[in-house]
């Protein structure tokens, strides 16, 4: 029996989760939402987290009906992510660890997503597509590591969506990606966009610049000092959202399918914030059906960054005997998925 409290704050979400031997006891979260057209910046996000985190810790203990003494381990996100918000979680985790005299463990954010996805769906050994605002990776487990088979070579898929939402001034509430998904349902015509798959890797920044010009042709005229012919069609926002989603999701499905073929696997698990997009799940489902495979997807409670996944991954590490002296409880902006030795998996 391991009862773990997890603190996640690597991006604009601050979340606390408590898990006891695989049973979810509490999962509370607050999101820093910026006005339309604006992204979240490290300093302001850290301030938001500082103001929310202690009340969330209290709320999680109340929801779980636990006393601090019932916990076995405190877990926090060590990286990757933005340093100032990460540090908020780390400071509170260290302080609680010393106050309550509980061991402390730093967890890789990506590993948290993968382990949470496996716990919720029961997928044994899936190909993992990890898609969020900061990461885009196709991952397969082999020989005690989660190996990255393919990834983005520039910006993450969620970053591409978020920034497009900013360009067309969509609301960031509850999330820019959700609002794009809703608007895309009204899209009627597909606009051809660049399709950028390079081997097992993908690239989104060129697509973003391209669609940016389509969405706001006035910008292009100023930039290049060239009059465009006025006959060029104006695209509706819905069509742009629809076309962007179709294109970038098709790219993701392609590299995932290739990873499945390479590893001779017929299970796919989608995790990360973009993973709760139902169109992506649907497209992945079609691909899997054709290969007689199965797709595992989870809902926004566990897909979007949350403290529970950190608690769960930390609990797995704790059970496997992981220890972390306080001096090593720092945060790091770069922390690759394959740096972690996955010694809690038996296969």
């Amino acid at each position: 029996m391991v009862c773990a409290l997890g603190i996640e704050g690597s991006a604009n979400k601050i979340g606390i989760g408590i898990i006891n031997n695989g049973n979810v006891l509490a999962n509370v979260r607050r999101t820093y939402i910026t006005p339309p057209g604006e992204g979240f910046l490290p300093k302001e996000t850290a301030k938001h987290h500082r103001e929310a985190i202690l009340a969330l810790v209290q709320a999680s203990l109340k929801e779980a009906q636990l006393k601090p003494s019932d916990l076995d381990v405190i877990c926090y996100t060590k990286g990757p992510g933005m340093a100032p918000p990460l540090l908020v979680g780390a400071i509170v985790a260290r302080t609680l660890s010393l106050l309550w005299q509980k061991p402390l463990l730093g967890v890789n954010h990506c590993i948290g997503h993968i382990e949470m996805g496996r716990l919720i769906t029961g997928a044994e050994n899936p190909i993992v597509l990890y898609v969020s605002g900061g990461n885009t990776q196709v991952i397969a487990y082999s020989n005690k590591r989660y190996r990255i088979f393919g990834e983005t070579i520039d910006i993450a898929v969620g970053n591409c969506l978020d920034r497009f939402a900013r360009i067309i001034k969509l609301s960031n509430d509850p999330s820019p990606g959700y609002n794009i998904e809703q608007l895309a349902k009204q899209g009627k015509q597909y606009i051809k966009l660049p399709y950028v798959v390079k081997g097992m890797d993908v690239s989104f920044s060129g697509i973003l610049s391209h669609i940016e010009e389509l969405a706001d042709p006035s910008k292009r005229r100023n930039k290049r000092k060239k009059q465009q012919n006025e006959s060029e069609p104006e695209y509706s926002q819905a069509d742009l959202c629809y076309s962007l989603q179709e294109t970038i999701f098709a790219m993701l499905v392609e590299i995932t399918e290739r990873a499945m073929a390479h590893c001779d696997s017929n299970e796919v698990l989608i995790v990360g914030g973009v993973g709760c997009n139902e169109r992506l799940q649907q497209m992945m489902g079609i691909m899997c059906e054709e290969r007689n495979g199965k797709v595992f997807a989870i809902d926004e409670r566990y897909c979007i960054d949350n403290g529970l996944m950190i608690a769960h991954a930390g609990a797995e590490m704790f059970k496997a005997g992981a220890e972390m002296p306080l001096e090593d409880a720092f945060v790091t902006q770069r922390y690759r998925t394959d740096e972690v030795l996955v010694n809690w998996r038996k296969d």
Partner: protein
Amino acid sequence: MMPQQTVVSKVNESTIRVPFDTPEHAKIAFRVLSVDQEPRRNFVQKSLSLEDDVLVVHFIADQVKNLRTAITSFFECLLLCQDTIKLFGEQPQSQLNNNAGTQSSADST
């Protein structure tokens, strides 16, 4: 202003002394805040020490601007650590009333 050579050897310094309710709490803050290193490009040296229930932090920087940045971010961490201790730590009896205004600590122990 010409006398650059003499200015170069001079340093900007600052010492902050933070008293805590108990030596134990001061020690916790000391250990929590000692973990994070100053960013290398900041050119600030930070050293923490303990004097019973007082946390002593000493900053040395080549520029006042860097000193300010380092102190500002240190205070952000310090305040968060202090708030966490206040809310979840055991309070000495005499101190309980002082925190009544912030948040209830009734169910924290």
